[in-house]
């Protein structure tokens, strides 16, 4: 489904990703783990081309999503970003109403039918397990929600435009344990519909939610295998050291 071929990535002269090859299976959860600065978030952001917004960033190699080269000349970046949703580390709802936050992606993609938008907003909020909590205050500001609710709102916002892939960049690292659990439950439910790639600092989280895990270190993909295998019987000593907490 997603494939990285010979990826090298540079911020100016800094070599952030070194010769990465990785295939990510559709309709599954893939966790990317590794110490800070290892390149896992940079790798994640390749797939919706958010790195394009950084000046002096340079990429070689190929990124394929569903067989399509997403850095090809014909690709409409805005359209690509609609198909590949992203949830950020810090919840970043817009200072608009709950309803308008979820409707935003639909509106900017040219959908104007009120009935349709209202239906899709409800559907997305239900999918993000937030509907019951907010259905009576859709017109209230999203900023009045708790951090965990805001993050689920951001997930709903991403789901509303019906992406096929959901990229999550440490989606629970700014949240309390209960909110984190809700997000993990949500990821578990979404895996049958979406291809999910999640960057996380939390090893337990990776082992709980993911099917496959990739371990990054110093810009290299050190090990990539089934999560169960990775956490019980890793092949490389670096991986072993990292997941047992000997460094990082």
């Amino acid at each position, binding site marked *: 489904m997603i494939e990285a071929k010979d990826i090298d990535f540079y911020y100016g002269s800094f070599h952030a990703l070194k010769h990465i090859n990785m295939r990510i299976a559709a309709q599954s959860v893939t966790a990317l783990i590794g110490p800070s600065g290892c390149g896992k978030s940079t790798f994640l952001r390749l797939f919706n081309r*958010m790195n394009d917004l950084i000046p002096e960033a340079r990429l070689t190699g190929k990124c394929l999503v569903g067989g399509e080269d997403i850095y090809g000349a014909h690709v409409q970046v*805005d*359209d690509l*970003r609609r198909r590949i949703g992203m949830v950020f580390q810090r919840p*970043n709802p817009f*200072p608009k109403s709950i309803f308008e936050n979820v409707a*935003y*992606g639909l*509106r900017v993609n040219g959908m104007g039918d009120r009935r349709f938008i209202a239906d899709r907003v409800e559907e997305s909020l239900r999918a993000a397990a937030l509907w019951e909590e907010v259905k009576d205050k859709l017109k209230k500001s999203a900023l009045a929600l708790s951090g965990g609710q805001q993050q689920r709102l951001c997930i709903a916002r991403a789901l509303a435009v019906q992406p096929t892939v959901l990229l999550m960049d440490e989606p629970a690292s700014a949240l309390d344990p209960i909110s984190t659990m809700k997000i993990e439950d949500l990821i578990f439910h979404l895996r049958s519909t979406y291809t999910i790639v999640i960057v996380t600092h939390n090893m337990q989280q990776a082992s709980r939610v993911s099917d496959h895990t990739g371990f990054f270190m110093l810009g290299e993909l050190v090990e990539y295998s089934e999560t169960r295998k990775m956490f019980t019987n890793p092949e490389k000593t670096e991986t072993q050291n990292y997941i047992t907490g000997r460094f990082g």
Partner: protein
Amino acid sequence: MRTKLQQQIAFFIFRSLGLLVIGLLFWILGFIVYHGAGVISWEFLTTAPRDGMTAGGIWPALVGTCYLVIGSMVVAFPLGVMSAVYTSEYARNGRIVRLIRIMTNNLSGIPSIVFGLFGMSLFVRTLGFGDSILAGSLTLGLLVLPLVIRTTEEALQAVPATYRTGSRALGASRWQTVSRVVLPVAFPNIITGLILAVGRVSGETAPILFTVAAYFLPQLPTSIFDQAMALPYHLYVIATSGTDLEATRPIAYGTALVLIGVVLCINLLANLLRRRIGKHAHKS
């Protein structure tokens, strides 16, 4: 113990200086009110000067200043906001942005009398607008353009980057991101910039001297090609070149009081507007 004493001394000095600023402000205001309040009356506000400007009111100057404020904002606001949006949201070329910034800063350092001369040469003469509200508004608009640009840029840069990335990640274009997320969030602060600009424009004398201001006009202007009186220039005239300076002194203070009042009123109005929009943006 020593650090505590140092702190007390430091804070004492800071507090005194802070109070001194407030004191100065009230002193100036009190001074103007004390000398000028006596002449303020309905008649003073709503009639034209009489008897060689030793009697009567300031109505034409009041109206002229309002016209000039509106006219100059119509010039400076769209132009300033659009250039600020360009430099802080669109331009990718750092060198061009830096050049524009340097030029903007230089522009704001030019003395206002030079703007007056420039306006006279370009708008009054070359473009043939004559001494008119149009020429004056354009000149004043240019004068406050750097102020509008700078405050708008600051307002835009105060918008968290996460709003932009969030919007772009949903497939919104740069323009959609700017118009639907960034500008609404920045708007209250942009309005603050506008307030500052209005305050500046309504008090300027030099730029209107050669471009619009009339020494005395008994009638109100009827089109943008007419000359107009304006409060700051009127103040200058009755304070320096009247027939009987002693007799007109209270009128001068009264005019100053009205000028300050106008600026305060506009500030208050804009603040209310800003708060309403701020609340609204927060809600919807």
